[in-house]
Every structure is written in structure tokens, then in C-alpha cells.
């Protein structure tokens, strides 16, 4: 141990605690740098938990495999004439659906986590209130990544040949990850509001099913009745799916990509502050 250490460096050694010095050292809020360190620390915690409980990866592993194959062989002929013609439509749709499933898990897990004893500790520490929310969401980027890549690989295995090439695919996966992460703030907000993890699960289901099935994720919007088309057109999931299709199939950065990105930004700007506020109030 060094001899020039300050008090915080030698927390347990002979130097006496000096209350007035401690008061003088306090700050009225965390600096941006401090917040970043806190968010990373919480992300580290979430990663540790993922490693210890690999069963939470089941949804991101099973869903892409199962749904891609199932939907392709069941609906392929009916919707697009053949499985190989359906794949360019289907794969981006499955991608969006999988990302939403991961979002939902984010909200449910946050709620479960908030009921644990350790959250009392987090509340009593001088940390920014956004850290316990944003930390797990950073760790979740890994889950979005795994889910997207797995869906794409399953598609390739059953004969999908994306016209956008490698760059188009990388772009499409990146957009899916960004969209998933942004939409997750909605479910995080739900997580901070709801009474229990089960209720988060229930509410999220009710949001997720209309969002994915009342979109162009699995069928072309033109085949739907007019009133439904109106909803499908404003559904942000439709825009993300269209954008990912453009990237995967044509390697083109179209207006749809722009709309999808703008939609994501809007969602984050609205729901991240809502989530933090509702979380702070819970304490």
C-alpha cells in the first residue's frame, strides 16, 4: 500500500472519518462521466447474470430457428407462390418479431429485478436513476445481436439469398438491433409502472401481437382490408420491416430506413425520460 494514499484509497486503515470533509466532497448530482461508469457497471452486472442463467437465451435462440422454418414452409406457397419467393418478405419480418420479443423480456426482467432486495441498495447509493435502467439495456444489445444473426443464418440455410450482399445484411441487422433497443424503452417504462412481472408480461403481449401481426411483417399490406391498411401504414414495425427489406434485398438505404431511424429516436426521446421518471418515483 502506498503512503501517499488519500482517504478513499485506504478505506479501512487508521485515518479517521472526517464528516465536514465528507460533506465538502459531496456533489449535488452525478457528472456525465460518472453516469457513464455507472451505466457500464450495471451492464456488467446484467452480463454476469446472463452468463449464470443461460436459460434466458432460450427465446432468442428458439424463436428465430422455429418461426423462420415454420412460417416459411407453411405460408410460403400461399403468400408468395413458393418458399424461396417468400423468404425475402419473411426474414425481415421474423427479425422484427424476434427483436420485439427480446424487448418484452427486457421489461419483464426489469420488473422482476426491481422487486429484489438489491434494488434498495441501488436506491441508497448516489447514482443516477437512469443507470439501473440503461445498464441492462446495453447488455441486451448482445441478445438482439444473437437473435438477428441467428434468424438470418436460418434463412440462409433454407435458401434465402439476400440481394443486398454482406453490406446490406450488416446494415439490416444493425437497424434491427437499434430498433429493438429503442422500442425496449417502451417496455422498460411499462416495467417501472406495472405492479408485478406477470402484469408486465400480460400488457407487453397485448402490445406485441397487434404490433407484429398488424404490420407488413408476414403478409403484403395490399392484401388487407382498407381500414387495416391504415393501421399497418402507421405501425412503426412496418417501417422497420420495410427498411430492413430494402437493406437486405437491395442493399439500398431508402427513405424507409430514414423513417425507421427517426421513429426510433422519437421513441427513445419520449419513453426514456418517462421510464426514468416513473422509476425515480417508485422509490
Amino acid at each position: 500500500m502506498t503512503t501517499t494514499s488519500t482517504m478513499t484509497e485506504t478505506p479501512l486503515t487508521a485515518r479517521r472519518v472526517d464528516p465536514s470533509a465528507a460533506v465538502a466532497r459531496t456533489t449535488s448530482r452525478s457528472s456525465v462521466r460518472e453516469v457513464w461508469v455507472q451505466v457500464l457497471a450495471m451492464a456488467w452486472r446484467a452480463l454476469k447474470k446472463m452468463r449464470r442463467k443461460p436459460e434466458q437465451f432460450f427465446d432468442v435462440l428458439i424463436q428465430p430457428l422455429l418461426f423462420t422454418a415454420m412460417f416459411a414452409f407453411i405460408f410460403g406457397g400461399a403468400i408468395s407462390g413458393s418458399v424461396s419467393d417468400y423468404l425475402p418478405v419473411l426474414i425481415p419480418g421474423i427479425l422484427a418479431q424476434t427483436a420485439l420479443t427480446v424487448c418484452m423480456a427486457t421489461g419483464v426482467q426489469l420488473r422482476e429485478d426491481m422487486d429484489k432486495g438489491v434494488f434498495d441498495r441501488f436506491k441508497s447509493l448516489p447514482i443516477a436513476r437512469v443507470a439501473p435502467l440503461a445498464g441492462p439495456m446495453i447488455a441486451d444489445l448482445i441478445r438482439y445481436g444473437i437473435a438477428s444473426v441467428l434468424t438470418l443464418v436460418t434463412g440462409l440455410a433454407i435458401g434465402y439469398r439476400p440481394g443486398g450482399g454482406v453490406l446490406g445484411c450488416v446494415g439490416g441487422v444493425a437497424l434491427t438491433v437499434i430498433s429493438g433497443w429503442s422500442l425496449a424503452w417502451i417496455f422498460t417504462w411499462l416495467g417501472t409502472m406495472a405492479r408485478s412481472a406477470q402484469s408486465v408480461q400480460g400488457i407487453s403481449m397485448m402490445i406485441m401481437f397487434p404490433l407484429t401481426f398488424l404490420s407488413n411483417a408476414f403478409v403484403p399490406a395490399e392484401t388487407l382490408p382498407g381500414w387495416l391498411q391504415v393501421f399497418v401504414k402507421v405501425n412503426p414495425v412496418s417501417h422497420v420491416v420495410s427498411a430492413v427489406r430494402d437493406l437486405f434485398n437491395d442493399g439500398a438505404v431508402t427513405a424507409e430506413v430514414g423513417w425507421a431511424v427517426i421513429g426510433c429516436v422519437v421513441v427513445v426521446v419520449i419513453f426514456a425520460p418517462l421510464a426514468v421518471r416513473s422509476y425515480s418515483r417508485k422509490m
Partner: protein
Amino acid sequence: MADLGAVRAENLVKEFGDFRAVDGIDLHVRQGEIFGVLGPNGAGKTTMLRMLATLLSIDGGHAEIFGVDVRREPHRIRQLVGVTGQYASVDEDLTARENLWLFARLQGLTGTRAKTIAGELLERFGLQEAADRPLSQFSGGMRRRLDLASSLITRPPLIFLDEPTTGLDPRTRGQMWDTIRELVTDGSTILLTTQYLDEADQLADRVAVIDRGRKVAEDTPDALKTQVGDSTLQLSLADGSDIALAANIVRRLLGEEPVLTPESGRMNIPLPDPNRAADVLIGLREAGLGISSVSVAKPTLDEVFLALTGHGAVDEPQMEAAR
């Protein structure tokens, strides 16, 4: 610099619906002391502590910690107070070392320093061997120690301990007491709650007794005990018919009036000086009276309550009403 006191709370109020869990409590804790808050289940101890620690909102009154306003500057308060709650608030899915590392990082320590401090705390609290095991394998006592260690990472000048020894075995309880005394030697101030008069007696410089959200007394443990009364010597005679004889011996030796239960041959004798218990025993032996059991009982929290409030500590109807 004037001593602002560690805690100054005036007329604190917390309401849950129309039930007042904390009903106008004043609390002044001096720097460097151990201040005990004594009270039965549901008295409002935890609620009061959580309000002061910014974990619950303050519905009425005013609180300052080292001169910092609790309501207006919660972030500063959190830098000054280490909280060890009634139930361990550590992460069950991490190891002990990972817990300490995480809490240290969250409070802005660098990675290496966080590692050093985690190591030091594990050693100080006798947790090195279990350091890398999952917490699910920890005993209640180990969890408690880890929880306390987690509150000490930045050496906060004020430490809240909510029933720090409830559920610990006598040896672990003794160790906890030693640790608490060390913290004060290092310059920290301690505010602790307890249900045991004995614990307050051992540790605290001053004690506030609270009941149903109100403070009913505040004094040194000695003064409180004097208010309450003395220990008692409890005897059972081998032959109950000797009881009148035995009572006479007690009166002659101690000048105290024993309380008799002739049916069972038992008597309770007020004992201002515990040393004189031996006089009674010798006196009975010399008179040829056999004893089947003997014990010395200290005043209990229940007796403190009876003396201070006129009702017992375990007061079921009140507990029901609180629900």
C-alpha cells in the same frame, strides 16, 4: 466549526394512507455517538430510517444530516450515509466479491481500487473463503456481514443499521457489536435500531424509545433502566411449603419484598445489586431449604414499555389496526 450534529430531524411524519407510521418524531444524533432507536414490531423504526436515508419520501417535518437537507439534496445525503437495511440488500445472483466490486464501481471507484477495497472488506468481515461462492450458499449471518461491508465501501460518516443483529447467534452478535464499536472509533456516527434493550445497553450512548410512531422516551441506557427497575432473582423451592420461611430469609437479608407464587413454590425477588443473589442462596442453604431452579432476569423491552407507556411491547390489537 459548530457541531451541526449528525442527524437533526424535527417533527418527522410518514403516512401510509390515513395511517401515520411515523407521527412527529424529533431526533438529534450527535457526531461520533452510537444512537439507538428502540421499539417493538411496527413501531416505525424502519420507516423512520428509510425516510432519513432518502428511500422513502418525507411527508411532514424537516430533516438534516450534517447540515444537508434530506428532502432537497437526496444525492448528497446518499454520499454521506451508509445504509444496512433490515433485510440484506445484496445481489443474490452475484458472488460476495462481485457485489462489493459492483457497489464500489457505482460509487465511482476505479476498477483496481474497487478490487482492492473488495478484498480488504472481505478479509475484515471474515468472508475471504466464501468470497467467490454464489450467495445462495450463504448463511443469514454471512449475508448480514456482506450487507454491512457493502455500506462501508466509501467510509460514510454516518451509518444506519436497521436491526443489525436480529437473527444472529450470540457469537456472531458479539462480533457485530465489536465491528460497530470499531466504526465509531474510526470517527463514524451510528444510528441503529433494535428490539433488544440489552443491545441498546451494550452499544448505545443514547437511546430513543419509540412506540406507534411516537417517541416516548430518550435517555442514556442506564437512565432508562433505572426508570424501569431492577433485575429480578427468580427461585423455585424444592418443597413449596417452605415458601413463607424462605420469604422471611429474603426480607432479612435484602430488605426487599419478594413476590410469591405459593402454588408452585416460586418467588421473584427484586435485585438492585446482582451480587447479592449469592447472599440469598447461601441464606437458604444455611436454613436447609432446597432449591429446584434459580435464574436472574434483566428488565426486558416489554418491561421498559410497560413502564414508559403503560402497555406491553407486543400489543396485538394495535398491530391489527396498523394493517
